[in-house]
């Protein structure tokens, strides 16, 4: 391989996505709303006994390909952080009761995606977190690209 080609490869931006699944239960209740408003807004999701989903999480990191390893990130490091920081905290939990942040944050898919970003971002100093995509069901997912980031046309 020529030096010019190697240099080009070293500068190439690439995105890697790792998928993981977890199962958890939740219900929706906003203390800012009356019981009637909660019922009207959230419908069946307001049942305080909760209901569950098989969530599918996609974590995308971006960066340049390391010329020595040919990788953008060491996948086992990423897997370990995802497992420790997210899956062990959320999997088979009743989010409202067992995960402290959701004592005061409503565990909607939107908020869950934001919180997963906050759980992961400080622990991924060895790469650059680009996107969290969280599927609540195959028909509903949320993407989050981090705070105050303009991503128009980027995904």
């Amino acid at each position, binding site marked *: 391989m020529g030096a010019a080609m190697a240099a080009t490869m070293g500068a190439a931006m690439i995105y890697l996505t790792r998928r993981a699944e977890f199962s958890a239960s939740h219900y929706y209740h*906003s203390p800012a*709303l009356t019981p009637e408003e909660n019922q009207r807004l959230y419908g069946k999701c307001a049942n305080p006994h909760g209901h569950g989903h098989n969530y599918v999480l996609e974590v995308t990191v971006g960066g340049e390909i390391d010329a020595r390893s040919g990788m953008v990130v060491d996948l086992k490091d990423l897997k370990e952080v995802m497992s420790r920081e997210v899956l062990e905290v959320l999997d088979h939990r009743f989010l409202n009761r067992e995960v402290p942040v959701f004592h005061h944050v409503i565990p909607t898919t*939107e908020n869950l995606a934001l919180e997963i970003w906050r759980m992961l971002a400080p622990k991924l100093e060895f790469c650059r977190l680009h996107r969290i995509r969280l599927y609540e069901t195959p028909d509903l997912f949320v993407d989050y690209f981090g705070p105050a980031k303009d991503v128009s046309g980027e995904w």
Partner: protein
Amino acid sequence: MTADSVHLTRRYWFSASHRLHHPALPEQENRELYGKCNNPGGHGHNYFLEVTVAGPVDPRTGMAVNLAELDQFVQNRVIEPLHESSLNEQPNFREQVPTTENLCVEIYRVLEEGWPGMESARRARLERVRLEETSSNFFEYRG
């Protein structure tokens, strides 16, 4: 884009038939251009539609968009009129060929037109429509 904006995507489906045929072109040219899709009887697809809206999460509700309102909106504006229809008979396709490209743009336009009347429009904007004609073919439009 403001801080903590999320992009929420909802997936829907409908079935419809179409025939790709341009009235301004000769028969032979239509057959060459569109191939099997030009067969006079038409053919159908199960279309999968993704609608993406973007906006900040409302701290009172935890939501960027009221999902029930979004579902009803897409149902009324897109699914109900198109499901089990012949696209060539739709008013917007009397003059243009109902390719999935054109259909994707039309769906975006119909949604964009009604979006300002939505309660959810106060926080969220319509960002993207993605239309899958088959699992191998899909199109995206962002206005």
